């Protein structure tokens, strides 16, 4: 006990109180931190300032910040009062919100639905464990620890709705979507219906933007993020004359660069699936049937497929094999793409994807060569930022800072806000 306690605190157990509070409060979760960074950077607007540049902007910002601080100090109380006074109200059909925030169903058969006073709605699926974090005038925060829910948010200016799904955070303003988190599989799914959302979480230091009709699947354990256009799957059975929407794939590294300059790890590529109708692999890829595609190829004979498959089929096979960890088949499909369709966009991307495969297998030098080859063939390609960043990183490993420095300079010239900008700066500054 400290002196002032023994004199004045008498029997009150200050240490025990402190222990309870430290155990219960004060931990900033990864999604909270990611969302906080996003919100802070948006408020700062330094990225825009850099884009529109100049010290005048800096001085204007500083003046604005001082003015804001003064204004905030003067009006803060009333702003808070105002915000508290106009918080949304809500009701729960088929359930209730406990004091601790957990959303409980009234009966085993009922599915709780939260209805908010602005017309927004959240319906839990059966067996879902969820809790209500807070509600204010702009929206609410709901966390799902296991299960899924359908969300329909009414668009309003300055709305802020946040949905935690395991370690991920989904931020929306007005949209309809279904999302779920499977803790056992460490899998996030977000199925968009309308509007757009932003997803942040452990596989990316930035955010993944989703739009209407897309389905995001993140497998944390595999370090894989896949965005599928659901309309593609629906269109796949249509006549070949139709022009299906593209499939997008995003590959986020399982061990994200913890560098300060990391931004959106966006290595998305769009590739045509127009040749993939024959075997239906594009549709099955969109549906997530990766193992099924590989099994069919194995039944038909891998070599046969590699010889007669279309560009779209080879692309789908390569993706399916990569996602299902059949690296050897993925490699063969990518090499076949390069050999048989050398001028096609998928063939150009193949060099990058081969680099990723080689890197995951520890063939670092080969990976550097593949990235370099990709950058020669597609200097402004979809994967250019990622390829240059990986090439720089691996070159630093293999040959040291001096050799990697040229790549770091090129990276900073071309992608000053890119995922690898921080590492590039540290390499460029190393002497």
């Amino acid at each position, binding site marked *: 006990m400290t002196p002032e306690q023994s004199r*004045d605190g008498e029997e009150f157990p200050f240490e025990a109180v402190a222990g309870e509070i430290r155990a219960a409060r004060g931990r900033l979760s990864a999604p909270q931190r990611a969302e906080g960074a996003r919100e802070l950077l948006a408020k700062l607007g330094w990225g825009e300032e850099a884009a529109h540049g100049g010290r005048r902007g800096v001085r204007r910002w500083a003046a604005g910040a001082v003015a804001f601080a003064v204004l905030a100090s003067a009006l803060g109380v009333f702003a808070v009062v105002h915000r508290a006074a106009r918080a949304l109200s809500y009701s729960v059909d088929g359930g209730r919100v406990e004091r601790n925030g957990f959303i409980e169903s009234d009966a085993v058969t009922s599915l709780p639905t939260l209805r908010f006073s602005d017309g927004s709605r959240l319906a839990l699926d059966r067996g879902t464990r969820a809790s209500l974090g807070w509600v204010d005038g702009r929206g609410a925060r709901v966390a799902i620890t296991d299960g899924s829910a359908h969300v329909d948010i009414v668009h309003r200016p300055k709305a802020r709705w946040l949905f935690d799904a395991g370690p991920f955070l989904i931020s929306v303003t007005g949209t309809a979507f279904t999302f779920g988190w499977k803790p056992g599989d460490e899998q996030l799914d977000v199925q968009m219906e309308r509007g757009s959302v932003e997803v942040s979480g452990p596989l990316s230091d930035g955010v993944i933007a989703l739009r209407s009709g897309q389905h995001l699947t993140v497998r944390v354990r595999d370090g894989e993020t896949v965005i599928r256009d659901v309309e593609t799957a629906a269109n796949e059975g249509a006549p070949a004359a139709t022009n299906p929407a593209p499939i997008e794939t995003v590959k986020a590294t399982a061990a994200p660069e*913890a560098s300060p300059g990391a931004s959106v790890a966006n290595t998305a590529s769009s590739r045509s699936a127009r040749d993939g109708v024959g075997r239906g692999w594009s549709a099955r890829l969109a549906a997530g049937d990766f193992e099924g595609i590989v099994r069919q190829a194995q039944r038909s004979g891998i070599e046969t497929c590699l010889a007669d498959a279309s560009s779209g089929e080879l692309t789908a096979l390569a993706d399916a094999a990569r996602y299902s960890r059949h690296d050897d088949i993925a490699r063969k499909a990518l090499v076949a793409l390069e050999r048989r369709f050398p001028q096609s966009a998928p063939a150009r991307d193949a060099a990058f994807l081969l680099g990723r495969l080689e890197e995951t297998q520890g063939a670092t030098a080969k990976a550097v060569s593949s990235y370099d080859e990709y950058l020669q063939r597609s200097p402004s390609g979809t994967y250019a930022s990622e390829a240059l960043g990986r090439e720089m990183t691996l070159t630093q490993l293999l040959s040291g800072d001096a050799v990697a420095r040229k790549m770091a300079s090129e990276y900073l010239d071309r992608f000053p806000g890119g995922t690898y900008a921080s590492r590039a700066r540290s390499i460029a500054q190393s002497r």
Partner: protein
Amino acid sequence: MGQLKPPRWGLSAHPPLRLVSPALTVQPDDPTLVAALSAHEEWAARATWNRYAPMVYGLLDRALGSAGESEDLAQEVFLRVFAAIKTLREPSALRSFIYSTAIRMLRWHLRSKRIRRLLTLSDSGIVPDRASPGVDSEGRELLERFYRMLGTMGADDRTAFTLRHIEGLRLEEVAAATGASLATVKRRVRRANKRVAAMAKADPDLLAYFVRGGARNDP
């Protein structure tokens, strides 16, 4: 595959391998961050947030007992820090600069809450705060009662009490962090102690909960 140009950097296809440290990530030090923040480098703002937000949020959340309030206030703290970064004379003191800014903002916020209470408006909101992991519902309710109890204190006394007992700072450190004299801090902490002890006596459940060591000591 078509004919390729030689590698762009004159690298051989198989560069010589050498042993490297497994640590791949280089984190900038505080002076580097301060310089970059002064130049409005966005990566520095992100890095500063990532490095110090847990500290700031932890302080605020333990002091306020509200995740929502703490998140909002943490944002304000960092905006204030970035706005005033050029006034920081010793770049290596970024951590203490952020910490002292957080304490100033906390006191301002507590004063605002008291004014709000004088206006007889609720400051607790209409929904429960985020569930705290590892705390049972009884413990959560009792902690809420404890925070309501703290809410009746003045901002200065409450800040001193929080820093002394919850954050575990020495009295001299509390004085330095709040800009008050040691004598003033002692007076504030003593006053807060007496008040908390008196209020706890009127709430035997709360007192019993803390005396038995909360949920962690339950069978």
